[in-house]
């Protein structure tokens, strides 16, 4: 891309994270000297051995955790805590079970912090539900929805407050294979429509190759960036495409 306005949209700058021990717990060093930059509008997949700290990376960016050393910068400023410009989409959807589908999406819009920003609640809710194809389920409770629908609802709730980054923590891991493929297309479709920056943690290498602009390969704990793979292939990409297979094989060799 020529003339990118914000090359330093998200930046991890020599980030280290160590969980202190105490009361019988070991000191755990999760991240060591991690550097990573993400451009605005990019779709970045993060893969790595399980338990290596991929999700922790997202928690740092969401502001749920603070780094022990180094800096996590969002548009040049250190992250001070959670904020609606960086929304997390959890693996096990963290939907509010006492609210209906529509109320879940409206929840963020009705908070004091987001009131009076010119967005009409009902219109935004309707638009979001349509975007994730849940219109017609507005009055259902999360417990009435299937796994794929819950995941889409979670995405709609996050998008409703108009974030700049979506942090997706293995969002499709709990779905069956068929729903998962549909959802991969859905997420790409949402990304193309909204042009939000997406950081997408997954343990499925094929999924990463099919979806992402770039793939970040993380090392075993204490983790750092092992390699970054640019995926230049045109979308839509198919699992059966030999080019996709080639990249996937190279990446999985890296992880062994």
């Amino acid at each position, binding site marked *: 891309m020529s003339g990118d306005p914000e090359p330093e949209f998200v930046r991890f700058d020599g980030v280290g994270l160590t969980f202190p021990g105490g009361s019988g717990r070991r000191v755990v060093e999760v991240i060591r000297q991690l550097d990573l930059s993400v451009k605005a509008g990019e779709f970045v997949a993060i893969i790595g051995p399980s338990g290596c700290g991929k999700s922790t990376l997202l928690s740092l960016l*969401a*502001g*749920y955790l603070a780094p022990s050393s180094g800096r996590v910068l969002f548009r040049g400023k250190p992250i001070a*805590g*959670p*904020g*609606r410009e*960086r*929304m*997390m989409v*959890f693996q*096990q959807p*963290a939907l*509010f*079970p*006492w*609210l*209906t589908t529509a109320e879940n999406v409206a*929840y*963020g819009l009705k*908070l*004091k*912090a*987001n009131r009076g920003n010119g967005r009409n609640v009902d219109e935004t809710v309707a638009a979001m539900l349509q975007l994730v194809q849940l219109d017609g*389920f507005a009055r*259902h*409770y*999360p*417990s*009435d929805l299937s796994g794929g629908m819950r995941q889409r609802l979670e995405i709609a*709730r996050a998008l409703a*407050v108009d974030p700049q980054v979506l942090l997706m923590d293995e969002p499709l891991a709990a779905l069956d294979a068929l729903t998962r493929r549909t959802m991969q297309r859905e997420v790409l479709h949402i990304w193309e429509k909204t042009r939000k920056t997406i950081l997408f943690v997954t343990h499925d290498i094929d999924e990463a190759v099919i979806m992402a602009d770039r793939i970040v390969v993380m090392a075993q704990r204490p983790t750092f960036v092992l390699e970054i793979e640019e995926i230049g292939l045109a979308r839509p990409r198919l699992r059966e495409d030999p080019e996709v297979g080639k990249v996937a094989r190279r990446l999985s060799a890296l992880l062994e």
Partner: protein
Amino acid sequence: MRQLLRTWAARRLIRWAVVPRAALRLVGPLTVLLAWELSARLGLVNTLLFPPPSKAFADLVVLVSTGYLWKALYASLFRVVCGFALAVTVGVSLGVAMARIRLVNDFVDPLVELLRPISPLAIFPLAILWFGIGDGSKIFVIALAASFPVILNTFAGARSIETNLIRASRSLGATELEIFKGIVLPASLPYIFTGVRLAWGISLIVIIAAEMVGATVGMGYMVLEAQQTFRTERVFAGIFVIGAIGFATDLGFRRLRQWLLPWYRETES
């Protein structure tokens, strides 16, 4: 579409299965009553100790027509409702405070654990000294005994909230107060409700016992007085009324939950 089909099928199943089952559930109690009636009439049991249920129901009619039952019932229910309301108010506030503020937990929890195993009736003689033989002493013991399940369940509910729910709402921009009102309270509500239902059951048990120990009016007093004058049919009449109230109010609580917590799915039993 699948959703629609599922609810439709579920409704059909309920209509088909529950009606005969509800009737079926009456068979047990009716059989016992009938066997009891027959054995009393045939002289198989001592009718002084086991008067036929028809005699108890006849006495119930007398109690109703003379107005004695209403007086006793009103006295008991007034005490129960007051004590229960106090228990719920204090219990929910303390439970939430304990879950949210560590210092409160450190202060209150040992007190709860020390007082909880004591039978409320052991405290009742003291309560009579403090609050008199009237309503005050009963309301006090009910409030004390019934507050424990409310405290403990509210605490458990407010503590077991998914971290991710709080995180999600914080990311969306919620303030601490908004998180408390919008997340902590509704998430604890099913637990609080369980505690409240238990508290009601305890209130009904405690009031009868307390009124048997020291009272001048009330359902417990009525039953005890009947026993001391050897009117066994009245003892049974009183027991039937007490049972019916417990049964009806618990049904009411279940309905109330469906109305208050339509989103809540209890694990199938």
